[in-house]
């Protein structure tokens, strides 16, 4: 019961969080700002998938969360590398 309610609240909060992060992504102003927003969205998505796995009793989705966590880090690093390279 507790979990059921918590899940709904969590999903709501995460939904809002995703949209907020998008605001930063759209606004920038600098490229690193957007990268930060994208990175955050990746983490938020990890959270969202975790919650969803709980609400649906489908732990297989956690695998998706793992892969996302692994890979979004890589994306951020690549982006950062690009930012730095372009700056020179």
């Amino acid at each position, binding site marked *: 019961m507790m979990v059921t309610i918590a899940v709904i609240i969590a999903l709501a909060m995460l939904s809002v969080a995703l949209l907020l992060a998008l605001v930063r992504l759209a606004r920038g102003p600098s490229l690193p700002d957007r990268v930060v927003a994208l990175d955050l969205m990746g983490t938020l998505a990890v959270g969202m998938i975790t919650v*969803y796995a709980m609400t*649906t009793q*489908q732990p*297989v*989705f956690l695998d998706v969360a793992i892969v996302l966590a692994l890979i979004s880090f890589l994306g951020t690093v690549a982006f950062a590398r690009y930012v730095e390279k372009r700056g020179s």
Partner: protein
Amino acid sequence: METVLAFVIGALYAAGLYMMLRRSIVKLIIGLAILGHAANLLIFTASGLTRARSPIIPEALSRPLAPFADPLPQALILTAIVIGFGVQAFALVLIHRAVQTGGTDDLDKMKATDT
């Protein structure tokens, strides 16, 4: 949700096509990418949605518990995603070379081979 996704897909198509209609080659390729997402989502939606239940047979069972999501469109989309990835990678390098050899990213200036 099919209805909502129908609108999302339509909007993605519109966005992708609009981007492709720009003169900038960079926007063209972003448009193409969006179009790819739209097409995949379309297959996903058109063959019917099932919430959450993945087509994986649980331990101790010999077939998945109904209702489960249709695995076939998933496999098709997976194939399409992978193909799209290859195409996207190649197209990216292609525009990179095109800009390098042509010295511009303005598609309107790339029309020497037509007439």
